[in-house]
């Protein structure tokens, strides 16, 4: 069986940067800039797919930024490079922002192979949307939602954020109700993190955010309302109806291979982590120097040559993860999934004994009610999920 990998494609453009956002994205760029970037990106996709031609693509995720601002002709450049590498029906997701979706675009996406849409709604309350710096109203969202639904997308996800400044439980509850009425197949429910360097971080402090009890109520409300409507939680922040868990996102938690292309994108292939430069000028420069084709056969990921070939491309790494890091990641990523981790798989993957490594800690955390162990599966309990940062830190070696 071929090794699999997921492909992430980063489109770092937006109409306007949202007030809470610390993702790598640029608002209001000209089509000339975008086209130059896409030229570099398609080149990188081509080289990457060539380099990993021995691997099988398991999912694709086009994220951003706002990929849906791309015109069909621009997106076509990307699709073009992908088609021949895709075999069979794999999950291909595109992130969309309300207000950037048209019927023509949606039809083109569908025809181009996109089969999953992740819609950034964040809130169904117009005041909150305004505060977040979103370019759309709830009405705008509904129009976009109708379009993608009409165009035949039947794997649709909605992103929500709770714990907004001055948000009340009843406001948030209303957002949940509105979203549930739309019957999306998948919901990602995050809670707000004030990230340094964002306008939110500058504007708001602890006092502006809902207090701990309110925040917790919203968080519990998410779980109870969604569970009541046929969604199951499969990851700390992710809920799906049966059969609609995101294959792509699960790759991250299960430590599958993934290749990130585009500005600042992170990758992990065969236990080597590396990231693209976050500097646009550098990114555009180095795609032309990107070594491809025959040369690549002589490059081993283990060898020093790697440095010379990729030095320019990658701002971080490549870092070959040692066994300790791999085991740590296995735990703190795997436990984010509600199904938890499989202890036998851990033992066979690392040729070690789980209980010798973690037995004592695990027993204590089970006794305290934060972990549960059933047979070979170890998972966070509900109480454990609530304080998962503390629990997961226990698994750093």
């Amino acid at each position, binding site marked *: 069986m071929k090794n699999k990998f997921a492909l992430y494609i980063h489109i770092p453009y937006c109409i306007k940067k949202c007030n809470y956002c610390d993702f790598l994205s640029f608002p209001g760029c000209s089509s000339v800039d975008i086209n130059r970037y896409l030229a570099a990106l398609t080149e990188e996709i081509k080289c990457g797919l060539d380099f990993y031609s021995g691997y099988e693509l398991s999912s694709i995720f086009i994220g951003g930024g706002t990929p849906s601002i791309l015109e069909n002709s621009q997106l076509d450049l990307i699709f073009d490079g992908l088609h021949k590498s895709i075999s069979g029906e794999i999950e291909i997701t595109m992130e969309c922002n309300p207000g950037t979706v048209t019927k023509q675009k949606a039809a083109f996406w569908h025809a181009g192979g996109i089969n999953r849409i992740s819609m950034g709604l964040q809130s169904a309350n117009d005041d909150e949307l305004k505060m977040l710096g979103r370019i759309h109203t709830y009405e705008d969202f509904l129009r976009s939602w109708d379009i993608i639904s009409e165009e035949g997308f039947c794997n649709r996800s909605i992103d929500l954020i709770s714990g907004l400044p001055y948000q009340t439980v009843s406001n948030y509850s209303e957002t949940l109700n509105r979203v549930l009425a739309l019957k999306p197949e998948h919901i990602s429910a995050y809670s707000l993190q004030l990230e340094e360097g964002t306008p939110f971080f500058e504007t708001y402090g602890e006092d502006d955010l809902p207090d*701990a009890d309110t925040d917790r109520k919203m968080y519990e409300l998410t779980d109870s309302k969604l569970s009541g409507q046929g969604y199951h939680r499969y990851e*700390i922040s992710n809920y799906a109806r049966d059969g609609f868990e995101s294959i792509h996102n699960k790759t991250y938690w299960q430590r599958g291979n993934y290749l990130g292309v585009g500005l600042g994108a*992170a990758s992990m292939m065969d236990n080597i982590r590396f990231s693209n430069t976050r500097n646009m000028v550098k990114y555009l420069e180095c795609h032309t120097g990107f070594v491809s084709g025959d040369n690549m056969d002589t490059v081993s990921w283990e060898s020093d040559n790697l440095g010379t070939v990729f030095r320019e491309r990658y701002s971080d790494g490549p870092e070959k993860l040692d066994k300790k890091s791999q085991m740590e990641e296995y735990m703190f990523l795997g436990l984010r999934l509600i199904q938890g981790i499989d202890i036998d798989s851990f033992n066979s993957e690392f040729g070690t004994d789980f209980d010798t490594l973690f037995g004592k800690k695990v027993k204590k955390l089970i006794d305290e009610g934060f972990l549960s162990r059933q047979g070979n599966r170890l998972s966070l309990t509900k109480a454990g999920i609530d304080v998962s940062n503390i629990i997961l830190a226990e698994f750093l070696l």
Partner: protein
Amino acid sequence: MDKSKIRNFCIIAHIDHGKSTLADRIIEQTGLLTSREMQAQILDNMDLERERGITIKSQAVRIVYKAKNGEEYIFNLIDTPGHVDFNYEVSRSLAACDGAILVVDAAQGIEAQTLANVYLALDHDLDVFPVINKIDLPSAEPQRVKDEIEDVIGIEAQDAPLISAKNGIGIEDVLERIVTHVPAPVGDEKAPLKALIFDSVYDSYKGVIIFCRIMDGTVKKGTTIKMMATGATAEVVEVGYFGAGQFIPCDELAAGMVGYITASIKNVKDTMVGDTVTDLNNPCEQPLPGYKQVTSMVYCGVYPADGAKYPDLRDALEKLQLNDASLFYEPETSIALGFGFRCGFLGLLHLEIIQERLEREYNLDLVTTAPSVIYKVHKTDGEVIELTNPSNLPDPSTIEYMEEPIVSAEIMVTKDFVGSIMELCQERRGRYISMEYIEETRALLKYELPLNEIIYDFFDALKSRSRGYASFDYELKGYERSELVKLDILINKETVDALSFIVHAQSAYERGRKMCEKLKEEIPRHLFEIPIQAAVGGKVIARETVKAVRKDVLAKCYGGDISRKKKLLEKQKEGKKRMRQVGNVEIPQKAFMSVLKLDEE
């Protein structure tokens, strides 16, 4: 050497009144040192001292001055520590001198500490002459300060040199005055050796270097010396005098001279400050008066933050003690903190200095417990225990009564703040003795205060409540019976021995409550609720609760950027490393010093 050409003197000043700067100028202008050789402040050669702007260990320097009368004079300038913790050392340095320069800031006038040191100098029959410094300051009032010196101290001040040590103004005047106003030493070179130890330092090549003033007789290489108090004997290897920043060997030291002796002595404990050095084979009859065994006033537990560093801490203390005979330590164990040492200090400043040196020079990360004084515990069976560690207090039912040390304190403060300072003294269980106005705007307050009320933060409180205008000096008066109780702190129902302290019964509730509040701030939330209780004799008198963490989840873990997620978890783990595990609870190291900060608000 002609004794009439020797002048042995010291400089007395309040902190910041310019003692070290004047010393530098004197050394500079006597020409023995080029400017290039000058460190910024020669007498203060420890980094720490420089940062704090104070001098800790006494040192001496010998310089040559060619006076206006054409004669060359030897000046021995003996430096004195400027803090109340080192009062005894000051008194021994003064005893090595024949005269003293009193430096008074032209703007600030006399301070409590100045006064205390001047009285000390007069007690030692030193001839004191004043110098008014910082006359170039816009706020200088030399005439007012002169009058003040005459009124308060009662020494002639109208012809005092007006100088600016910083800008080198009037230094010549000072030098001439040393010649004319400091008496030449007396003493008989033919009499048996009698020398006063005023300091000693340990040198890894030479062993202990004794700093001494020869009162009678002579000492040279080969003399077998005896320290009269400690009884230690040794054969002299070298004698010499103090060049600026270096030791200059000479053939002999004779009566009237100041210099050093080395004799391959291994331990500074053999050469205690104030002891008398004599010739074993031709001893003097009586030692010099004034020798006291230094006793620690303040004790605290010192523990390595990382238990594995215990041997490092022991080695460091051993090395520090080589140079500091007043540092006391003995091993102790704490349930909360593991293996460490109970250390005794001259005072809180001394404690802080040692703590900083351990951390800085020996690169140790320390946890220190709240400082404690020595309590006398009179048991029902007649036994008297000197208690230095509160957690060792015997069962209350076996205690007849307890005594605590009391100090006589003098506080000098400007009129406007008399009220708030008196209030402070009342709060600290002070007993009012007297108040006199030493001039129209300034009062000298005398109080008796329990030492345990002033070792924590009294000095800081004094400064903040007087906007820096109060100065303070104290000496131990004796022990008094007092209603004392041990306050225990329970964290998650377990008594944390390192947090126990002795407190006056009337303050127990207040202190206990504040302590719980403080600890509530210091202890991070855990996965479970943590009660923090203060108890006296098993009875809980205050309680706070650190609530359990109910939500700590990184809901947004997007994309493949795992390293960021890991960094966050690592930060969480790092934080835990700086904690002490007591039962199930992780207590941050600084929480153990909380008791010191109860009056911060």
